[in-house]
């Protein structure tokens, strides 16, 4: 995790200057959430840009600023890059007004990836809440592309309501690839026949072979906290629990200071952390 690989889309002369990518498709995912499919204008970059599951790009809208957005597409699909974006702040609301053909600035990819190679041979539980599924989707693609390298795989996913669930049309594909999928919502509606409750609850649905299991999680911090608790309670080693964190990020390269958590710059030393790296800080409030 420590070797530095130069990100493909970062200018040498000014690392804060963006590369430009065109919006080639916009897919509505849920209320206030869409996936933006992008293609770099620079043909050479479009071919050479590569990322690892769990990494993010800084997405720039001139006049509004940049937001750190995880990449939610298949890392092996080199034709385009997908970002699933929730319209929640200044920049992402500007993103919501983009049309196909518009250009956005991109810098990246930044940050640490999910440890897909280290986890080969392991059972994997992916626990996600809300938009937290987006940074985990590349990990799911990776598992499906190399299904034989992993043991039992469970996806535990929760959203506020059935309408807020991301990528519902893909769950069948996941199941075809021998992945167990369990979903839950905070509030059901008339159509919902599944479970109601929080994501950590879904751990009670199956038995884990703890020593050979790993947990990958992303979502609201409160959910992450309880997912970690459930993992540890089942004796999953702390160094086999991986967490993707979010903070205010401006540079993506560990320079501007904003995303610090203790000694870490989340943009550079994270966003994916092994839980044993975080133990000292994770339960300190407002740190």
């Amino acid at each position, binding site marked *: 995790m420590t070797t530095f690989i130069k990100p493909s889309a970062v200018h040498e002369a000014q690392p804060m*200057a963006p590369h*430009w990518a065109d919006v080639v498709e916009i897919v509505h995912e849920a209320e206030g959430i869409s996936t933006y499919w992008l293609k770099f*204008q620079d043909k050479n970059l479009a071919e050479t840009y590569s990322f690892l599951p769990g990494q993010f790009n800084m997405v720039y809208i001139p*006049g509004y600023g940049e937001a750190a957005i995880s990449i939610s597409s298949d890392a092996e699909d080199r034709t385009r890059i997908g970002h699933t974006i929730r319209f929640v702040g200044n920049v992402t609301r500007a993103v919501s007004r983009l049309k196909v053909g518009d250009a956005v600035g991109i810098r990246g990819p930044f940050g640490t990836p999910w440890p897909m190679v280290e986890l080969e041979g392991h059972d994997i539980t992916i626990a996600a809440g809300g938009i937290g599924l987006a940074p985990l989707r590349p990990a799911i693609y990776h598992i499906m592309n190399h299904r034989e390298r992993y043991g039992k795989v469970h996806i535990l996913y929760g959203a506020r309501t059935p309408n807020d669930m991301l990528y519902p049309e893909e769950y069948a594909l996941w199941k075809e690839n021998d992945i167990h999928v369990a979903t839950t919502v905070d509030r059901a509606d008339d159509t919902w026949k599944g479970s109601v409750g929080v994501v950590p609850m879904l751990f009670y649905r199956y038995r884990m072979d703890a020593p050979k299991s790993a947990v990958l999680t992303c979502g609201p911090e409160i959910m992450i906290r309880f997912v970690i608790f459930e993992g540890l309670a089942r004796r999953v080693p702390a160094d086999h629990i991986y967490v993707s964190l979010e903070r205010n990020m*401006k540079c993506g390269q560990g320079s*501007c*200071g904003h995303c610090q958590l*203790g000694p870490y710059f989340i943009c550079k030393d994270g966003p994916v952390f092994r839980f044993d790296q975080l133990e000292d800080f994770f339960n300190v409030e*407002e*740190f």
Partner: protein
Amino acid sequence: MSQEKLEIGSTYALPKAEFDNLLARLKEKGFETLGAKVDHETLVYEPISALADLPQGYISEQKAGEFRLKKTHHKRYFDYIPGAHSWKQFLFPSRQELFTLHKNGDGWNTELPDVEQPKYAFIGVRGCELSAIQIQDGIFMREDFTDPTYAKRRQNLFILAVNCLHPAETCFCTSLKTGPKVSPGFDISLTELEDVFLLEIGSEIGRLVLQGLPLEASSAFLLQAAQKGLERAEKKIQRELDTSDLPDLMTKNLDHNHWQEIAERCLSCGNCTQVCPTCFCWDTVDTSDLLGKETKRERVWDSCFNPSYSYYAGGNTRPTISTRYRQWLTHKLGTWKEQYGTLGCVGCGRCIVWCPAGIDLTEEIPLFREEKS
């Protein structure tokens, strides 16, 4: 003497009247010379062209929350202790253009600003300040991220350092081992005696600048006078910061009740971070024209005391003053060490002097050693 070859590591005496020639030499070599000037009853770092621009005869009395320039009877030029300004504003400007975008159909053309960077010569860099520059070198010139402006300005930089002979009451460089004598890293270091400046050559460019000036060999008498002055200065520094249990003292006391006690006095104004010569946090700001055809993106100093500093989609990570103060101090004296190999404090005392509430970290730190309640 002036015809002999000067040597790096050797010390020479320059009559004070010749100092302007040294400045002229620097100008000839393309340097913009910057130094301390009196302005509105404080000291600022600005362009200087002659020794007379320096605050001759001034000392600066400094206490927690207090800075007073005072004229004395003596005629020395470097007895002052710097004010709120530090050199960081020149290497890491408080506002700086990153690029400008011009609308072009559905896309944008990126225009990078002129890459020609100024060549600065800092005149009068103190030991603590030189250490601060070296700390920021590690921040802005990392293997995996180099800030182009900083790197260029730093490569161009000429440092004329000064040994501090009259430290202020707020100085505690001895605790951080950054002064009062300057450590290597300078091009020339200067010690001010009554009639002459003693100059030690620290680099090849420093040697070239001095070559040909009417220098005298430094006598044992002068060297001893300089040594005595430094010993007196060291004795004068009474303020202390015990660093023996740092950084652990910080990282193991995140839940200490003293954070709240400090927060009751702290205004969260961020002065400490702006005057701190090592604080490096920055933000980005876009300025657009009304037609949306042009956007300038700038980098500006930020502060961990700004409420917006840690604001993101999930809310504000540090919504209270106590959590922001804790972030600042645990970073400075704690986690900085793991990030950059040193503490983030050089003992200059600026955060003490320029705190409107007079919060003094050297007084607060020992309180974290007391029992938590």
